[in-house]
């Protein structure tokens, strides 16, 4: 990226977030240029997209976290045989066909092949069927389990849930993130935006301080991305397992020396909608690989 757009970005960002003054403008360790994310030599994913109008110029363009990772990590995501997350997505696919609960049903009993779920992830989170709540993918899954299968709800960050959301996300691989932020979703989106710009914790840092004002810069050993969620759940090499969207949020809030919100909380669902909307137009990456 050249100097000029970065400058414009930093200025626009400062204006968009009136509560925050702009920060030092620096250009180094920027995202990689001139590379395409093509999976299995077959599926080209969109890793850069024009910033959506609702961002009011807060970002010059939206970028997948993939662009900020090192060569070896990026390569792992380009071939399903090398992508360590695929094992978990396979386990999720197995669960899809596994009977569970008092009704003696599996997900497949009603939904058919898991491929039928193509498109679902791209619109998550969205307003619940009753119209009075905002649901993440996890809520939809648990709703089917408890009300339709007579099975117990899975924990938000349980292996079953993460494997299932991985398998479901994979079905939407390549489709653009497209969440509704108007109508009944509007108040949730506003709430999420407020959280995004709030400087939490003893370090008094907002999501925007790191992921809007300083993406491309280094914070200690970490190369800051825009904090997008189009690749989730992601496989983290550090913990050798999947990480959910809310668990990632929790880690980021904790690192500001703040009291976190709980995975599944209304706050994190609102934040998920807002962050998803910041990545509007990026491809759902199914399951990404991170350090």
């Amino acid at each position, binding site marked *: 990226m050249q100097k000029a757009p970065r400058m414009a970005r930093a200025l626009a960002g400062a204006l968009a977030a009136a509560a925050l*003054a702009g920060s*030092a403008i620096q250009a180094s360790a920027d995202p990689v240029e001139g590379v395409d994310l093509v999976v299995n030599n077959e599926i080209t994913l969109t890793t850069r997209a024009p910033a959506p109008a609702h961002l009011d110029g807060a970002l010059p363009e939206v970028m997948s976290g993939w662009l900020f990772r090192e060569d070896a990590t990026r390569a792992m995501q380009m071939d399903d045989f090398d992508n360590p997350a695929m094992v978990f997505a396979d386990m999720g696919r197995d669960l899809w066909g596994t009977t569970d609960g008092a009704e003696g049903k599996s997900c497949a009993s009603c939904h058919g092949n898991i491929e039928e779920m193509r498109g679902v992830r791209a619109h998550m989170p969205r307003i619940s069927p009753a119209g009075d709540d905002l649901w993440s993918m996890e809520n939809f899954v648990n709703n089917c389990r408890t009300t339709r299968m007579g099975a117990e709800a899975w924990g938000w960050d349980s292996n079953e849930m993460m494997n299932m959301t991985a398998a479901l996300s994979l079905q939407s691989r390549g489709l653009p993130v497209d969440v509704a932020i108007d109508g009944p979703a509007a108040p949730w989106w506003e709430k999420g935006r407020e959280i995004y710009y709030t400087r939490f914790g003893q370090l008094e840092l907002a999501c925007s301080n790191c992921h809007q004002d*300083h993406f491309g810069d*280094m*914070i*200690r050993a970490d190369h800051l991305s825009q904090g997008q969620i189009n690749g989730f759940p992601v496989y983290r090499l550090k913990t050798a397992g999947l990480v959910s969207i809310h668990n990632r949020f929790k880690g980021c809030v*904790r690192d500001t*020396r703040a009291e*976190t919100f709980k995975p599944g909380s209304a706050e994190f669902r609102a934040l998920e909608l807002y962050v998803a909307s910041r990545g509007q137009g990026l491809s759902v990456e199914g399951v990404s690989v991170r350090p």
Partner: protein
Amino acid sequence: MRRIATLCAPAAVSAAAITTALTILAPPVLAETAPAAIAWQDGAIAAPLTDSPGDAGRGAELMATRPLGNCVACHEIAALPAASFQGNIGPALEGAATRYSEAQLRGIIVNAKNTFDGSMMPAFYKTDGFIRPGDAYTGKAAPADLPPILDAQQVEDVLAFLMTMK
């Protein structure tokens, strides 16, 4: 524009401070100024927070240690080559003591937002006014008597090291 005018002539690090670094005995507990009792002048703090002079050696260590100063998370500090992975969120700290007076640097460490409006730099000697403060990096709520990230002596120690950066 937010950068304040640079005042100069910082005091040299005293030989005594360096000697303290080699002392194995902990310094005696001395009077210190609480965060709320600080006398500010335009983002600067003239009076030391403790009676005991800052120790540059300890300061250097604090600046590279994560739960403490961890200044290298955001700043390049060439004088601390052992601290691997230095960030570039803020400016490199080379020559900080030529750009700011001791009083200004003390103010920047205590609460940089009084110098740089809305700064991303955390306030290291502040105990209230936070939104959902946590108990260090546990993710749990902070105790009622949340301690500052650095105590008064540690602020003076970090300052002593910054004053060597000419």
